[in-house]
């Protein structure tokens, strides 16, 4: 019974990836268009949110510090290209590894803090990193790093003519991160993570080393968030501290996941599919009303969403299923 459900789910997952991969082959859907930009952003933010979901959704440690790891990844790629004149690839790897190390170093003491204190500590860490990077000349300071003009292609991971390259880059990132989470979910670490979330003492009494489990979740999560950061800086051709290491950026990780459904495999994708087009289209079409209108609307939607359905879209789906099951008479209910 259980195995069939997993297979069914993986089938959906595989079909989705194939569909997304085939999208650029249909002419007119993705060119150098705004729609391509929105698609790339959806894939990127879904991946970011999924990386956050590992530690906060599955392991239950609400981190508001993920923009730090995202930023380290961004600076890894940025410095490889701008400061050292290399391709971004060693930067991706170095940034991601460094982010994982930083995450473990930061989280080790912080995991002792409970609930709100952990959250506030992660805010403080974002602010410290932001302010230090602002005055640190080696990483470009407040001006940040601006990319030189580079030839297009996978070697430099930049494309200036068409967005198809970036689209496939984002898709690769998406498949990698969702694949890893899918793997974690069905393997030992995933069960440990959920056990720690549901009851740390109980999990420990059964022999789960909760600190090691949480730290490895954090390291995985930071590594993947940093890869997203690397992609983000390649896509924008520049990086500065407020762009990547800010509380607003941290909140995007949180918001997208919660809006979609916390601790759920599809949650980050659903959240990104709703929030990101909303953000990008309001930004593009409402600027006539002056600056900031997009964020005014964005803010209002978040408030409304939290008032109406705090468990996110997956909450609506669960409610709907439960109602159908209660209706009971339907023969196919509960499938």
């Amino acid at each position, binding site marked *: 019974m259980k195995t069939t459900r997993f297979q069914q789910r993986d089938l959906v997952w595989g079909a989705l990836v194939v569909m997304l991969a085939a999208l650029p082959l249909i002419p007119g859907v993705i060119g150098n268009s705004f729609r391509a930009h929105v698609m790339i952003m959806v894939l990127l933010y879904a991946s970011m949110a999924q990386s956050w979901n590992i530690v906060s959704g599955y392991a239950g440690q609400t981190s508001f510090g993920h923009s730090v790891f995202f930023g380290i990844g961004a600076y890894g790629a940025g410095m490889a290209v701008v400061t050292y004149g290399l391709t971004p690839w060693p930067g991706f790897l170095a940034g991601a590894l460094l982010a994982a190390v930083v995450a473990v170093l930061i989280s080790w003491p912080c995991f002792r803090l409970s609930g709100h204190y952990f959250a506030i500590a992660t*805010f403080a860490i974002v602010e410290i990193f932001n302010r230090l990077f602002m005055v640190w000349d080696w990483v470009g300071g407040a001006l940040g790093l601006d990319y030189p003009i580079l030839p297009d292609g996978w070697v430099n991971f930049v494309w200036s003519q068409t967005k198809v390259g970036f689209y496939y880059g984002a898709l690769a990132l998406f498949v990698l991160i969702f694949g890893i989470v899918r793997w974690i979910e069905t393997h030992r670490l995933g069960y440990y993570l959920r056990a720690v979330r549901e009851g740390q003492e109980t999990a420990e009494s059964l022999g789960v080393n909760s600190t090691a489990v949480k730290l490895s979740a954090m390291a995985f999560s930071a590594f993947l968030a940093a890869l997203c950061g690397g992609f983000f800086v390649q896509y924008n051709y520049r990086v500065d501290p407020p762009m990547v290491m800010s509380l607003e950026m941290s909140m995007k990780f949180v918001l997208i996941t919660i809006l979609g459904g916390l601790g759920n495999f599809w949650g980050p994708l659903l959240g990104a599919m709703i929030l990101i087009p909303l953000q990008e289209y309001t930004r593009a079409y409402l600027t006539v009303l002056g*600056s900031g209108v997009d964020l005014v609307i964005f803010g209002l939607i978040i408030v409304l969403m939290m008032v109406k359905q705090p468990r996110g879209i997956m909450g609506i789906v669960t409610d709907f299923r439960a109602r159908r099951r209660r209706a009971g008479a339907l023969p196919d209910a509960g499938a």
Partner: protein
Amino acid sequence: MDIFAQVIIDGLLTGMLYALVAAGLSLIWGVMDVIHFAHGEFLMVAMYLSFWLGFLAGVDPVVSWIASGVFLFIIGALTYRLVISHCIGKSAMPPLLATFGLSLFLKNLCMNRFSPNFRLLQDTLLGGKTVMIGSVVIGLPQLVTGVFSLIMLLALYYLIKKTRLGWAIQATAMDREAAELMGIHTDRIYLLVFGMGGACVGIAGGLMTSYLAVHPEVGSLFGLIAFLIVALGGFGSIPGALVAALIIGLVEALAGFYIAPVFKYVAVFMLYLVVVMVRPKGLFGW
């Protein structure tokens, strides 16, 4: 030595102001267990109100703090009634994210309406005046704001500790259901607490306009510092908030002067991290 005294005095005065801003947050956090993310933006709204009252109607901040206090009480109560009361419950996340949405909304609405420019009231009653004590120069607006914040804080403390309303608030904070069974209308207490939290920043914001410029981002930093103060003091503790605020004010002033101005907030955040590593529930928490 004179410079040192000057830095200490400046730090303490900043700390007193921080204490009033943080007291409102501490109350909300302690009683309702809600992380109120829009607290800093409430402060910004209060500052804009006080600024426009001064700019358009010529009302001095010495008076307009009353208006901004009342206005923010209403805003706070409305926020509770329309938003928080619908999502408060088991998890801490929905109210946190809802208030984050509210903060985005308020900040960008002000950005859109009032532009990102810094605005400072000219020719206020207190503005630019100073008092000399020995060789230490104290800005009169800072002094008045600091002392007044302290008085407000004492009044709040008295209200919580000595009045029947205060006991009802404490009872609600300890156990909502038990308080309900004792005949306390806890929903109304929550409404009042959110309003009072708003009034605290309303008063602080109203006073601050006599020497601080208002702009859409002004609330973010104050809000963040208020979080640190509350967590540092131990949540729900008003004396804790005062002590933590004074410490943060001092550290900010000392680090800003003796290390470098850019490091003053880094020092503050580092201090917080170090303290909570040693005392995970804050200085006065248990």
